[in-house]
């Protein structure tokens, strides 16, 4: 029923009624090339034939080619669905055909003259904007991942890890620059350092060793 409605709304707004483009565009209207029309014709014929493949029991006994087609797939499942009485089948077919036809007529009469829709509000707007699934997805997944990636790229990678690596290099260079001052060339300073070293060694020998 809903399918009948929106398909025929599509048909009515696109193919019926007055042309809504500019003068110039209307001059460009033409039939599609055969590369498009021929496959379409084939598909249309197949669509009609396909409808008769699964023809219900009430029209033609034992001619439903589809009914047993999937049988091998469900083998071992529910064995043989119960057959529906013919009257129920007639009723289901009748009701759905009537409803679908009603929607077709409604769609055609509503949209072939004035195809424009009023700006939807409330529930309609919610549906028009695809229930905001895209926005929710964007907020919940896309943006956090991008933010995380930016954080990794600019902070963790450049500052922390690379900073640590380059920092090691800088520390060595800085340390060497400072240690350089020890090599002053003054013999007195060297002797002093030597004596300090000897004292430290003595302390270690005397007090710290067992």
């Amino acid at each position: 029923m809903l399918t009948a409605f929106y398909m025929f709304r599509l048909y009515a707004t696109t193919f019926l009624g007055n042309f809504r483009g500019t003068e110039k565009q209307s001059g460009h209207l033409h039939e599609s090339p055969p590369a498009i029309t021929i496959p379409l014709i084939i598909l249309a014929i197949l669509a009609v034939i396909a409808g008769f493949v699964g023809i219900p029991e009430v029209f033609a006994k034992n001619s439903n080619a589809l009914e047993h087609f999937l049988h091998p797939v469900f083998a071992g499942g529910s064995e043989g669905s119960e057959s529906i009485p013919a009257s129920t089948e007639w009723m289901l077919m009748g009701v759905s055909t009537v409803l679908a036809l009603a929607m077709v007529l409604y769609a055609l009469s509503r949209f072939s003259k004035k195809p424009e829709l009023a700006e939807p509000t409330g529930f309609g707007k919610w549906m028009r904007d695809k229930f905001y699934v895209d926005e929710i997805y964007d907020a919940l997944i896309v943006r956090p991942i991008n933010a995380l990636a930016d954080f990794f790229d600019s902070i963790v990678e450049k500052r922390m890890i690379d900073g640590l690596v380059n920092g090691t290099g800088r520390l060595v260079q800085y340390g060497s620059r400072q240690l350089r001052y020890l090599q002053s060339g003054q013999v007195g300073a060297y002797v002093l350092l030597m004596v300090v070293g000897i004292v430290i060694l003595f302390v270690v020998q005397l007090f710290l060793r067992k």
Partner: protein
Amino acid sequence: MVPVLLIGIPLLAGLIGFSLKNAAAKSWALFASLLVLGVSLTGICLPKNSKQLLFSTEWMGTLGSRFAVSLDGTGQILCLLTALAFPVIFISTWKEEYKKANNFFSLMLLSQTGLLGVFLAGDALLFYFFWELALIPVYFLASQWGGEKRIAATFKFFIYTFLGSLMMLIGILYIYFHTRDHSFALSAFYQAHMQIPAETQSWLFWLIFLAFAVKMPIFPFHTWQPDTYEQSPSAVTMVLSGVMVKMGVFGVLRWLAPVLPMGTYMWGDTVSALCIIGMIYASLIAMRQDDLKRLVAYSSIAHMGLMCLAIFATTEAGIQGVMIQMFNHGINIIGLWIVVYLIEKQFKTRKISELGGIAAKAPVLTTMLVIITLANIALPLTNAFIGEFLMFSGVYSSKATSYNVVFTVCAAVTIILSAVYMLNMVQRVFYGPVNGRTENAVDIRTNEKMVLGFLVILIIVIGVYPEPLFRLTQGAVDSLLAKMYVKP
């Protein structure tokens, strides 16, 4: 004889190359690399137990080190990759003009010597020797012919990898002193863990693993890589990412996991966690890169992380996947680098934001790139799918860890991320509106079509029929798992 030729040809050709005229050097290098490829293919055609695949002679007798080289399954697949990569690189960058071209091509051949040596060595000292031999030419190549910030980048690269290598040397020496008859032979190293208690193996593991972790690279030892890839000349970047990072994976497969099985099991979870952090981390960073070279660099970190993860799962499927994926990743990433190189050469920029709409002008290049991209994402029918699928199933069925499901799920997230950054790149560089830079784009030349076409054919053939690669590596997988006490 085959392994000796594999090492000897590029070594001799490289040394001769230094004395050649600049114009002749290019053809000479291509000739030598094709010769190596021929020898490598001959090696694969020989029966597995052929005497021609082994060579051993006295080298440093007093130290217990021999010049022992052999070609087994793992070595074969990586030698084939190395042998394939160099001609591909030479042909695809054929039009590039280098200053002092003779030195450039000689150093390239010397680095090939080092790489092949690493994959062939059956002696720890020899392995270390070639490991360094592969590093030194690359240092000169990148620092002489690289980009603007090449000195800083190569210095960092050298210190990083050299620190790792020295740690590994200490580790090798420690194991050497614990071998029964003080020998550097691979077989003696495989026996040594009987004499080394578990606690010792635990820290010894890190000494050796550090070298491999830097090389692969594993988070957080990776920061040399994007800088070096960015600053190196394209041909060198292709060698580095296509072949040289595989040295790390290979090292773990041959010189770490079977040598220190206890250490490997003890640290399996830690290393796996690092791999997964690195995979997600690098994928996320790749999403935010504007420079094509850095994007591919980070993508490579993510893919290498998966290989390392699969090794530490120690399952048959996982290890098999790693071996095949090493080869596949080499092919795919060299293909990506060739495309990046062609783009940079034509448009004088690597910034994604400055490119767009190339597809309409260069349909062949675009087609090739899209196939290589799909392979990099590991879509079915491409080579990487085979490898990654095996690795994922290996990690999932791992008995070495109790977090196998968590690991698999986390690692699988990176496939989605890789699709995000790769497809995003394709979209922004090749589709969309053209701009001032890209409106006069021309398609690629015949030599470039040939090389990329060859890689694309390899991608699809291996993706559809990987059986030959399985057969090549099956023996190596079995013997590795036996040494890890997974298989009898």
